[in-house]
């Protein structure tokens, strides 16, 4: 099989698809796209290795941005900063990394491993730790497999580096969050060092090529005057829950998280309403009083016409959107998975509601081999 490369022209689709998997959060991938472009121009295209082809003895490291995406729009991170985070954890381990891993395929973090990989001349694994976006670093599939987030590195743009070695992954989140704030809320982290064998077991496969594919189908649908939202829904194997206009948005800050609710009213001729509950991501969808989708399944809000993802921060009165729900990796629906990322973890007093799987089948079942060209 010919080696797949992530090249400059792939980045637009990759970023557009990452915004969809961001489920309203994860940060605008625009800066990530510009950084990846700069890194690829300097260091060349980045090989994308299918998860199944990662050798058993690979030394793989997750690399991600931690902090506030809004800050990243202002204090733009450096390409070297991502590479530095990888080097710092590698030095602590005393091993040379062979592969880089994406923490979350949703939002700006889908692009960060590409930035680091181009800078370091390493390949990126076509997989991620979530299959979507989540707000905390222990919320990854490797946690379910007992893998430690640490030893973990953190690096800022000034050259400061730190290493954490913690008793569990929630401690890693807590300590790294404090350091991130002191570092100015746009830190890079290198974490979850793992072997190829562990990676193949504990990651969500095919998600970077899924991002590229999502971007591509939406773009091609727009060009051919077909429905981009339908194309995205079908590729994710999801269902469209609702189409309507945002008629109310309420935001408040609670416990450090921006919590909000948006009410959507159905398009002309279709009655009913949809209530969206969001924090950093869209987490719960309630249609006419009935909970129809919840985290950990994906709830994506897309512009009704262009199919572009709408973030929780940009939701406002009058937007015309369509809401789709798509199944997450089924392992999130185990008891351990739900304890980590279920609705109750986010403070909602109800169980998870799974979306029925659409005709295209499960999105993470390896279908991305066909036609993906990230």
């Amino acid at each position, binding site marked *: 099989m010919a080696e797949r490369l992530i090249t400059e022209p792939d980045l637009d689709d990759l970023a557009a698809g990452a915004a969809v998997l961001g489920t309203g959060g994860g940060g605008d991938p625009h800066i990530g796209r*510009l950084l990846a472009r*700069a890194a690829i121009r300097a260091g060349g295209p980045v090989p994308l290795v299918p998860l199944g082809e990662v050798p058993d003895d690979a030394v793989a490291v997750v690399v991600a941005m931690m902090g506030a995406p809004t800050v990243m729009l202002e*204090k*733009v991170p450096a390409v070297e900063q991502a590479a530095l985070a990888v080097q710092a954890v590698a030095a602590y381990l005393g091993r040379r990394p062979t592969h880089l891993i994406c923490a979350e395929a949703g939002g700006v973090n889908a692009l960060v491993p590409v930035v680091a990989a181009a800078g370091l001349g390493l390949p990126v694994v076509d997989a991620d730790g979530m299959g979507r976006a989540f707000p905390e670093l222990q919320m990854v599939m490797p946690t379910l497999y007992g893998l430690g987030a640490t030893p973990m590195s953190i690096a800022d743009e000034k050259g400061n580096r730190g290493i954490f070695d913690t008793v569990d992954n929630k401690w890693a989140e807590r300590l790294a969050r404090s350091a991130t704030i002191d570092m*100015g809320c746009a830190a890079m982290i290198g974490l979850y060092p793992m072997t190829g064998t562990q990676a193949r077991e504990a990651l969500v496969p095919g998600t970077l090529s899924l991002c590229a594919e999502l971007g591509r189908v939406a773009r091609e649908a727009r060009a051919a005057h077909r429905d981009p939202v339908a194309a995205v829904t079908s590729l994710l194997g999801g269902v469209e829950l609702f189409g309507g206009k945002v008629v109310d948005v309420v*935001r408040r800050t609670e416990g450090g998280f*921006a919590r909000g609710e948006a009410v959507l009213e159905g398009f002309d001729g279709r009655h009913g309403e949809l209530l969206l509950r969001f924090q950093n991501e869209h987490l719960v969808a309630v249609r006419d009083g009935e909970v129809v989708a919840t985290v950990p399944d994906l709830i994506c809000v897309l512009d009704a016409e262009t199919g572009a993802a709408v973030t929780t921060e*940009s939701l406002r009165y009058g937007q015309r959107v369509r809401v789709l729900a798509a199944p997450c990796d089924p392992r999130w629906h185990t008891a351990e998975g739900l304890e980590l990322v279920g609705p109750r973890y986010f403070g909602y007093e109800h169980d998870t509601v799974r979306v029925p799987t659409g005709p295209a089948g499960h999105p993470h079942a390896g279908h991305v081999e066909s036609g993906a060209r990230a």
Partner: protein
Amino acid sequence: MRIGIDVGGTNTDAVLMDGQSVLAAVKTATTRDVTSGINTALAALQTQRAFDPAAVYAVMIGTTHFINALVEADRLAPTAAVRLGLPATASLPPMVDWPERLVEAIAGRAYLCHGGHEFDGRRISEPREDEIRQVAGELHRHGIRSVAISSVFSPVNAEFEQRAADILTGELPGLAVSLSSEIGRIGLLERENATIINASLRELATRIVDGLVGSLEGAGIHAPLYLSQNDGTLMDVDFARRYPVATFASGPTNSMRGAAFLSGAQTCAVVDVGGTTSDIGVLRHGFPREATTEVSVAGIRTNFRMPDVLSLGIGGGSRVRGGQGDVTVGPDSVGYRLAEEARVFGGSTLTATDVAVAAGRAAIGDPGLVRDLDRSLAEAALRRIASDIADAIERVRTSPDPLPVVVVGGGSILLPDEFESGPVHRPEHFAVANAIGAAIAQIGGEVDRIFPVEPGRRQAVLDDAKQEAVDKAIAAGAKPGSVRVVEVDEVPLAYLPGNATRIRVKAVGDLQLEGGRG
């Protein structure tokens, strides 16, 4: 009395107003030098209604000249960008996302220096004076006379931009300096882009503004001159020389505000129906709702304030196709060839104007030429237009409250007298709505920053922000008692701890006409 002038790409409109009434209104052709067209317009005002130039207390001008210069990549000065932020931001230097053509048009050069702040006001690094002096030497060597200075999180703290400006102008007296903290909001690249565009227009701005002042003096008018800004407020000539970029969207803003004024509505939707497109926007308390997303100008992403205007491909010249059941209107149009191609003018293309005439909405051209047209088809086409426009109005609404609709423009005959959202107003003088929008403009002040909001302190923080906006309006020349807060927006930021909230407040007041800066 005051005079409002709108210099568009095609026409220069002028109005003479006294209080709320329009004494004279004229339309003349725009000239490339701008000023001779204005001279003609002023003379035409005199002809229509003789007035004493000494009785004019203010002149307000809206112009699209500067945005056109950018779009045409013409008349732009060699420009440098200096960014304070090292060691942060180095991977994406200034102009990294610009079209090559425009970087060349401004002979753009980029310099990265130390400095910048964190989101909470701490310093990223201290600016280095020697570094900035070295940049001054480079600017001198390359003959650059205009510079854009940006600093990371300068909307939180602008001290470093100011310090760099002092050092550079100390070395290079006469250097034109544009500060990003004066121009845009959070979002370094977009704010910096707007600042660089501004810097490239500085020399043109000086020439144009000097020309405008000269024109007025030539007409015997010694009243202060103001230019319209994107948000519908005014800036004085000194500010206009320094911040021409703030005029970019004044065209649609003035048109919407003028239309609203003429109809008497403060909160309304404005639909401007031209030959090819309809522009739909919303005014809240007399000011246009602003776009919340990045706005691309000539292929450059910027984030300065622009009115949120939706354009639909529906106008008087739109082609009408299909039958009663599947009729379509636009988006293509016969445009300026309406007077040759439309059926009512003896042409062979069925246009939106033809169906309006056939349905008895208007008498244009020769109504006899469309008498054979199926009346139910004409009505189906008009229903289609009404429903598309009503849809667009729904999209720009900002609240579920009833919303009056003001329609202007030559194509407004296509629209019904009522929409579901509210009644339709068709004001007089709508052909010069832009100039009226300029003439009625007020002075504004604005705050847009990230504030840490401690529990229980929300109201106090909001009050401080409001007072700051009011103070800014007064400092810019508003009459103290007249200033009121017209917009408050607060959004808690995702993933950011400490209840960081972005607060935007806008205050406006009447022009201080006597004493002070008036």
